[in-house]
């Protein structure tokens, strides 16, 4: 079927008998037909929702205290940069575990669940949410049993560090769960919350980015590519902006 080469295009919709022309939808999960022009709708897009401060969505009070304590040892506070707790890493992890990540949404969670080699990957039915419940319970239980009745968050900083080292090395055993897997994952998750965009609850006010000198969600460095070995001077910006975006002089 040859095209009409005149300046006006034949509207093929009439000629494509039977082809249903469905309206293009804003939802990205319904099947749509793309024909004749690129789809577009106003206000399109799917920005992330901000983690709002407040009560834990996933952790119990005890779990929250344990994770805050872990966060402050994994990333201790110092004079220049807050620690894991004050920068919101526990909030980050709480919101992540309460959401699709915690639930393993989208992962292949069908049986049978068989134990395999380490290089065959995670084979348990348990997702991160369930795992953390078990890990944190085991952590406090072990601390109370082995360290004078104290939960993890009640220990001195030095003792907390010993527990963490013990989990890494194997000296400090947890009941029913693998301490090394737990501590490795906790370190990874806390540090992830530290460096992720503040919209997710951690890295509050971009403290981690300021610490390392990362300028954040900038998209244009064209004027800096060829400036070698010079400090980039602009402050970091996140998905929700930065203080310099404020224009009001009075309210």
């Amino acid at each position, binding site marked *: *079927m040859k*095209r009409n080469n005149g300046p006006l*295009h*034949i*509207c*093929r919709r009439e*000629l*494509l008998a039977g082809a249903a022309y469905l309206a293009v939808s804003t939802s990205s999960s*319904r*099947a749509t*037909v*793309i*024909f*004749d022009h*690129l789809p577009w709708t106003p206000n*399109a*897009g*799917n*920005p*992330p929702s901000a983690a709002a401060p407040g009560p834990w969505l996933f952790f119990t009070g005890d779990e929250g205290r344990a994770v805050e304590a872990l966060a402050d*040892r*994994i*990333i*201790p506070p110092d004079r220049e*940069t807050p620690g894991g707790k004050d920068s919101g890493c526990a909030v980050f992890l709480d919101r992540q575990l309460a959401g699709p*990540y915690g639930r*393993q949404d*989208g*992962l*292949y*969670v069908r049986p049978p669940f068989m134990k*395999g*080699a380490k*290089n065959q*990957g*995670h*084979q348990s039915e348990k997702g991160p949410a369930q795992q953390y419940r078990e890990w944190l319970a085991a952590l406090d239980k072990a601390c109370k049993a082995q360290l004078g009745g104290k939960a993890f968050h009640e220990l001195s900083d030095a003792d907390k560090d010993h527990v*963490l080292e013990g989990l890494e090395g194997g000296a400090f055993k947890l009941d029913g769960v693998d301490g090394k897997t737990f501590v490795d994952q906790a370190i990874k998750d806390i*540090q*992830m919350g530290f460096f*992720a*965009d503040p919209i997710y609850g951690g890295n509050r006010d971009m403290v*981690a*980015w300021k610490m*390392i*000198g*990362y300028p954040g969600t*900038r*998209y*244009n*460095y*064209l004027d*800096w*590519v060829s400036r*070698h*070995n*010079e*400090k*980039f001077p602009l402050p970091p910006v996140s*998905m929700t902006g930065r203080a310099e975006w404020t224009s009001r002089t009075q309210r």
Partner: protein
Amino acid sequence: MAKRLPKKDVVIIGLGWTGSIMANELTDEGLEVIALERGPWRDAPTNFPPTYVQDELRYRVRHELFLRPDQLTFTFRNKMDQTALPIRSWGAFMPPNGVGGGGVHWNAETWRFLPSDFVLKTHLTQRYGASFLPDDMTIQDWGITYDELEPYYDRFEYLCGTSGTAGNLRGQIMEGGNPFEGPRSRPYPTPAQAQPFSHTLFGKAARELGYKPFPQPSGNLSQAYTNPLGLKMGPCTYCGFCEWFGCANYSKASPQTTILPYLVRKPNFSARDNSEVIRINLDKSGKRATGVTFVDTDNQEWEQPADLVILSAYTMFNVHLLLHSKIGRPYDPVANTGTVGRNYTHQTTSTVNGFFDPKEYNFNPFIASGAIGMCIDEFNGDNFDHGPHGFVGGGYVGQVQTGGRPIESTLVPPGTPKWGAAWKKAAKENYLSTVKPGTGVHGSFYAYRDIYLDLDPTYKDRFGRPLMRITMDLKENEIKQNKFLTDKFAEIIKAMGAEKLAIQYRKGPYDITTYQTTHLNGGAVMGSDRSTSVLNRYLQSWDVPNLFVLGASAFPQNAGYNPTGTVGALAFWAADAIRSKYLKSPGRLVDA
């Protein structure tokens, strides 16, 4: 009961790079073409805008643009005597999903393979003798030469606006380019990208060691460009959010920026998104495809009849669909019969991280593009004498650091604790002065008799079909190759001025949990010998002549380069064969 749609001339399975290229070519022939894409429509202003695309957690860590394993996954084992277990969460590779496919979130590293890569078996046998190759290595010639493919490499590069410096212009070796590359008929369409500090420093160190470094060919453009279809692209702004992410400002070559806006305007083209093809249908003879069956998001089955079927769904899904549609003979590694699933390969990668004096060096690692970097090719392919080394193959090495996104780029020198005050201090001090090349060593992965794809006996997908099973391991040859390359790479990083190195070799066994590029290849390879290939040299199925299978599934083995340049070139090559030969006389293009 499937609902039947009106017949089209062509049905295209998967609207990524190769599907888009083929759709554009065949609509120019006046054919009625429909493309079916399992995933959603994607587009920069609506899906990767600069208001929120710079989100490392969402797109890199949680892989939001990629296929959900629950929608389809594979099982994996190293050896044939092992039980394969499902890949419940991605690790070693990230299968694409959605319109644009991997073309949306690739790094845009746009390489050509070497001339010797296409005649690998012949070449290596001639040079080193057959006994130099491991007994279980099943490398093959492609059935096509570099010279035949060269005009199509050129077409793909000009479609993309690829930024680079020619190294071999019609036989003349050019200063500043890759002296080892095959001859190209004309320069790159745009000049190479400007290189940030650490990449420039690598080039300098490599040069001083006697190598010939050159800028990596990049589909993130160095300047504004209008491609042959009249589509416009802008210059890359070095945002550092390239691989895993869509490009927000029309500067990364993708089907969206180089083909789709032009294609969609054609009255003889339409596409359906969120429509998953579950089977290619054959007639009673089994030698002719009649169309496909696909499922929409309401789980309604539809039948799309067509005269010509193009399977362009990415390596893994191509092979998966061939197996489930019972096209061709599945490979049996024990009996050494069959071809579908045979010669499956990945990429052998590793890296060396360098820690420099923070008082002297500030690399601003966040200033980068996906295909930035200075590379050397002295150790790729058969560019050097392998005789003394006891392995074959090779790869490029380069400082190809593509960004400084902090979750994965805040490294600390070896020996630093992984947490605590010491960690925090080291993270703070080292971020700006660390060289983290990513896949700094990018080596070949040759084919072996017991590395293959077939159907799993136990695990099923959401339709109740068996998952595809991967049997893959790292062989001695690739491990040796990687050690050799990594050591060479480490020398250069050290020569740059690094105080401490963290050398990471690629070691066996093959690990499904650590990312090693998504350069999966083979399983439906092309060739001249029907007994060892699924497709002839035009990517036409030997078994079903009105079926063509595009993508890296056609590679008989992988070379030491990123595959997309070759994938694009082969798509143009196959399209040309269809237009100039097949349409005039449908049927076998090559006698079996």
